[in-house]
């Protein structure tokens, strides 16, 4: 070919077209991930899906399919609202919440960590990864983590601005049963009174009066500056002794 420019153009276009054509014909051409996380290769959890392989493009439905974390639970944990929580993508957290107080970010790695804790599959999180307070609350409520782990996570947990977690959690609990008389941040003083906790017991334990029936424990903890973890264990004992 005398026209070298045409030759180079032809070589480029034909190579790319041939590459595409052959790979398409053989079924190899893919421009999207399969949404199937890789499996853990070794150790006690060999063969399990690896939460560390969750990508930002995974929707909550994808995560549910691979790990069995209900999308409503995930949305509540990360303070997301919407009619179709399953369609939300892990990476949407970064754009929804941006940089939070203290320069921390809630992103895909937080979803990996939450999934790992929910499933009990180990995952080495990034050093900067933190969870929202609501996520820790949910993990503890559903007995996915023990009290010690909850305390540890609460140290770095962040409060999401105008988080929808509270109201969403109510919906979530309709489908996923909360253990009977489990004390949690969203438990109200009305609940506690129904479970046998009296004003006297409360005063004796904390030296401060109970809140009104509609107030929840978390708000009371914030007001009195008593750590939620301390309140929870003490109140759980009161509830258990009165049961």
């Amino acid at each position: 070919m005398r026209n070298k420019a045409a030759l180079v153009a032809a070589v480029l276009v034909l190579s790319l077209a041939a590459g595409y054509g052959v790979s398409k014909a053989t079924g190899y051409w893919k421009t999207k991930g399969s949404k199937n996380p890789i499996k853990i290769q070794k150790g006690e959890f060999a063969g399990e899906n690896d939460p560390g392989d969750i990508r930002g493009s995974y929707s909550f439905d994808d995560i549910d399919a691979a790990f069995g974390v209900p999308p409503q639970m995930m949305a509540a944990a990360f303070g997301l609202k919407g009619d179709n929580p399953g369609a939300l993508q892990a990476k949407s957290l970064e754009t929804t919440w941006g940089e939070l107080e203290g320069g921390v970010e809630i992103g895909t790695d937080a979803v990996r960590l939450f999934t790992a804790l929910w499933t009990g599959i180990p995952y080495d999180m990034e050093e900067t990864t933190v969870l929202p307070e609501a996520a820790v609350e949910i993990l503890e409520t559903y007995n996915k983590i023990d009290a010690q782990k909850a305390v540890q996570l609460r140290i770095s947990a962040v409060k999401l601005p105008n988080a929808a977690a509270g109201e969403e959690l109510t919906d979530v609990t309709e489908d996923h049963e909360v253990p009977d008389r489990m004390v949690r941040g969203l438990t109200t003083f009305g609940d506690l009174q129904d479970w046998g906790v009296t004003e006297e017991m409360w005063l004796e334990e904390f030296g401060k009066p109970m809140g009104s029936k509609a107030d929840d424990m978390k708000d009371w903890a914030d007001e009195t500056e008593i750590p939620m973890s301390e309140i929870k264990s003490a109140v759980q004992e009161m509830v258990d002794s009165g049961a």
Partner: protein
Amino acid sequence: MKTERWRRSIQIVFFVLIALIAVNHTLSESGASIPIPFLADASLHAVCPFGGVVTIHKLVTEGGFVQKIHESSLVLGIAVLVTAFLVGPAFCGWICPFGTFQEFVSKLGRKLLGKRFGKLIPKKLDRVLKYLRYAVLIWVVVMTAISGKLIFSDYDPYYALFQFWTGEVAITGFVALGIVLIMSLFVERPFCRYACPYGAFLGLTNLFRFMPIRRKASTCISCTKCDKACPMGIEVSNKTIIRDPSCISCLLCTSDAACPVSGTVELKVIPYKELKDA
């Protein structure tokens, strides 16, 4: 000027295609994508052949791809490598949309600076700085292998240019884009010359490509028009066969473009005897 017409046409087609893919991917996330034939709502990463290079380690050791890279990147990477073995890194000179972008900006630079364009960086320093892209290549490949993530996308001005509206570009990406933009006003293809890891990788094929660019010394009139035309600053006029790793096979130095003597600077299969003599 027929060489330049061919090249410019291909460059524009691929620039528009990549811009369309980038916009379409954003639209697809809100459920409103346009059905582009062959590519659907592919991401920018899915159609970048460099992904095929950085994922090699993970592919060999774990049988998977690094995050955001898919089979399409590997296929395109192999196709581009085949072309590079034949005619050199023509991908850089003819297809890469970021190379095209730099050329557009440099056109403005030429208008603003006139003859001072391209004189900002002394030749000696230019030669040294050209090794930088190999350091970038090694860093990118090693760090991607260690982390399993696309480390370079946070610093990639190409990614910043075609994704600036998405909120996914790191500040370092914007800084890199700004630096390249400003430098392109003073020097041709600054990113390709000094920092592009894929250009560094493909450039190595210049050392043994099947059809190199050859300067016929017997008919050369030493006008140095080939040197002035080269966007990568290669001194074509003092070489017989261009094996410089910076060559991007744009053909602007050849007798079909800048060289005024027919058949003097050409893309050509070199006979073995001539290779030995060279």
